[in-house]
């Protein structure tokens, strides 16, 4: 028991490794939110009228909405007038090569291990690095352009491909979908836009690193991925954030639209600042992610490893509209200290012969609360729909909580829906077995936790799997017994 406490102490006292602030001049707007702020953002970004309309519609609806309170989370009150809604690193000029990039920015990326530099090209990763809210540097663009793939910052896409943006923006997450989606739609500053043309298989993993930088800046990203007929793309999102005392709100939106026979794989490693061991500080991560399997036989996969943020509140969802469409959700969520997570997924079966799989692994330690919340809905016309859900929780220590809230709504008798959940701790017999074979308790716990999460980590692309494993180690391994 004493050993366990020691180990627990060690993890709770391990410092956040990626805490630092980069000194770059920001072009920052004052605090507060009103219609003028939205017009200012829109004008600043030289957006066409439809974008302004989109923002204003969302804002007006947002004013009528109330922040939902159904989640199993304790959220301190958020003052939306005390947030800076726009902050962009100062643009010096158009950048052609790495030399022109602010060296401080580069070193930030280096500390984060973002493969922006030459040797990183070997990893085969194209990076659209988002520093605070404006895209600074995009690589591989030319290679991708040859295949007709559009991978750019959102603001660029609005300028260059307004027709595509207008057609798909808000298709899977309408501007008035929920409280945070509406807020995002009103004030989002930038994000990524991906369009894969018909029949194209994207030759590399597309990747965006989000990073919140300027103090007191809520970051409102918007990502839109459109995969046209018979295309394929794998998209990576990963994040780390500097150490902060004040809570920061992050309300991003990710939209995926998969047309006929298209396949989209979206992987996330989320490691934002979770607050210190007393629960002070940390990011509020309130994200709306939704994929729309619009075409027949389309596929969307969500893979996520969540280790950061003080409060995580997100449900990457899929709407299976096309016949024979397939969706998967694989998640590992780790909470420690005073972190809170209420995360899961929604699978809405509308088309015939649609299939979805949910695998969720929650690990809670310290004084944290980790909840899975998922909805599986089978519409009356979704003949032969099939869902399998499994959500396991692992508790480390007796002061944390693990909760499961599945919702299953079935209106069709030809469908089969299954849900399973278990809650357990690491068995003494398991530890004993390892000890007996000369493995220390510390290593044994690491092995067991990694083995427990393996099923999900294996679904991640290679580069990410390594990082995810490292993150799990930082968060828990060798530190909890």
């Amino acid at each position, binding site marked *: 028991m004493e050993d366990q406490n020691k180990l627990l102490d060690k993890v709770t006292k391990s410092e956040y490794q990626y805490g630092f602030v980069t000194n770059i001049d920001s072009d920052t707007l004052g605090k507060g939110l009103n219609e003028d702020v939205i017009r200012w953002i829109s004008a600043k970004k030289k957006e066409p009228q439809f974008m302004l309309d989109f923002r204003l519609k969302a804002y007006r609806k947002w004013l009528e909405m109330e922040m939902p309170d*159904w989640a199993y989370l304790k959220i301190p009150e958020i003052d939306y007038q005390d947030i800076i809604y726009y902050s962009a690193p100062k643009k010096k000029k158009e950048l052609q090569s790495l030399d022109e990039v602010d060296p401080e920015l580069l070193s930030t990326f280096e500390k984060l291990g973002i493969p922006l530099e030459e040797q990183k090209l070997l990893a085969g990763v194209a990076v659209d690095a988002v520093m605070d809210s404006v895209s600074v540097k995009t690589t591989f663009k030319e290679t991708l352009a040859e295949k007709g793939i559009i991978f750019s910052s959102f603001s660029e896409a609005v300028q260059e491909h307004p027709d595509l943006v207008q057609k798909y923006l808000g298709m899977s997450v309408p501007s008035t979908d929920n409280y945070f989606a509406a807020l995002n739609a009103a004030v989002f500053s930038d994000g990524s836009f991906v369009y894969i043309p018909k029949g194209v298989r994207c030759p590399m993993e597309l990747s965006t690193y989000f990073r919140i930088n300027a103090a007191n800046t809520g970051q409102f990203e918007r990502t839109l991925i459109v995969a046209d007929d018979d295309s394929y793309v794998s998209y990576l999102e990963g994040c780390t954030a500097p150490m902060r005392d004040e809570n920061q709100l992050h309300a991003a939106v990710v939209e995926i639209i998969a047309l006929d026979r298209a396949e989209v794989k979206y992987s996330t490693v989320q490691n934002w600042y979770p607050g210190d061991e007393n629960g002070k500080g940390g990011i509020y991560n309130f994200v709306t992610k939704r994929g729309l399997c619009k075409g027949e036989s389309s596929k969307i996969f969500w893979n996520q490893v969540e280790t950061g943020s003080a409060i995580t509140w997100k449900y990457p969802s899929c709407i299976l509209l096309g016949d024979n469409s397939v969706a998967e959700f694989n998640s590992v969520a780790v909470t420690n200290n005073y972190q809170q997570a209420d995360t899961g997924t929604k699978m809405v079966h509308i088309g015939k012969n649609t299939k979805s799989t949910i695998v969720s692994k929650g690990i809670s330690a310290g004084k944290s609360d980790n909840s899975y919340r998922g909805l599986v809905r089978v519409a009356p016309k979704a003949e032969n729909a099939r869902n399998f859900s499994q959500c396991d929780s692992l508790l480390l220590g007796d002061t944390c909580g693990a909760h499961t809230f599945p919702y299953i709504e079935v209106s069709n008798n030809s469908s*089969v829906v299954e849900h*399973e*959940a278990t809650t357990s701790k690491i068995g003494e017999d398991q530890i004993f077995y390892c000890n007996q074979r000369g493995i220390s308790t510390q290593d044994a716990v690491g092995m067991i936790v990694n083995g427990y999460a393996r099923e999900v980590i294996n679904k991640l692309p290679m580069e990410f799997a390594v990082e995810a494993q490292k993150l799990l180690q930082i968060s828990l391994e060798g530190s909890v017994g």
Partner: protein
Amino acid sequence: MTEAKRNQEINQRLANLFESNVHLLEDGAGGVLNDARKPAIEAFRKQGIPDFKTENYKYTNLAKIFANENHRRVFAYEESNVNLHELFQCDVPELDTNLVMLTNGWYYSGNEQLTELPEGVVVTSLRKAAVEYPELVEKYYGKMADPEKDPLTALNTAFAQDGVFIYVPRSVVVEKPIQIIDLMRGGENTYATQRNLVIAEENSQVKVIFCDHTLDPQDYMVNNLTEAHVGENAVVDFYNLQNQHNKAVNLTGLYIRQERNSNVLTNTLSLHGGIVRNNLNVLIDGEHAEANLYGLALTDKSQHVDNFTFVEHAHPDCQSNQLFKNVLDDQSTGGFTGRIHVGRGAHGTLAYQRNNNVLLTGTAKMNTKPQLVIDNDDVKCSHGATVGRIDEEALFYLKSRGIAEREARLMLMYAFAHEVLQEVRVEKLGERIDELVNKRLRGEVSKCHSCVMDCES
């Protein structure tokens, strides 16, 4: 009319109903019952009538049900001009029980003296008990059912006037089950409130069977709430046979508090009813206690059965099992919400929950919400939920052995239901329920059995 306005109107109407009849409600009822009324109606006002936005009532929209309700209320006992014992014959003839009858939630004046009860055991009307045994009623009444936490409980507490009171003293074993038959009857649509209190002291044993019936084809609504206190080492069974007609609304609450080493079994069998909502709350308030909750609902036409359970583990080394099954035919709908909460100190908890459902038609609908809230690491908890149809392979297996399709389907459905039925710990009752379910599945009991009215057509 907007939903908010509709809800407001219902809340106002029910509050007014209380205000204008408070003298009738208080008349002749014991002090304990009356003292609880005003805080309860206040609590109801605060919460309001639940609709689909209320998390705990997500799948049973009570606001919709209460919106069109203009039922007659029964504020005083109505003498029956016929002998209820002659009018209604229990469907389980071989069953030997201590039988009491209630009519519209009131203790029937024609109940015979129960002669076979062991010494010290009390079975009487709650109204009478509040006067005759005030210290007992005071000690337990309203202690488990908190009006602040549930609007139906608040309504029941505000309007409660009568029901059954059962007291089993220390170390007494009641061999013969106590059967409580509630008959809804009257010349017009009627709303009834029934409140029961069961006290089983340490080392005692008792089995209680609640049977809910309707006698004529009027629209009925019942808000029925039972509080049960189960003492140390006590063994208590609750069976609830719900067999009302398709226009009835049955809102049933059961609150149980268990002490050390006690063992409780509840089995809710919803054979018939228009809209049925069962709230089951179990607080395990002592070490090494065990709670088993079972439920089976067979629905067809446009019936709706929603089971809600909340099992709270507050002490170490306790065990709970939940198994709920629904067989849904035609356009019927079902709901299940189960919540297990394991508290910080409740290490060594074993808690299981399972909800299996079969949809027989493309228009039936099932919503299920099995939930685990765990605040301790030394536990083994699991829950599972399935929604599907009859296994085609199993069906094929039976058909290939020369069993006709219809018969094979029935066999499979019966086998599905039997898992719940076998958990009945009263021998004769178990057999009879088996038979009833079998008949029900064959469609032979298309109207509520033993009902003389043909209200189905």
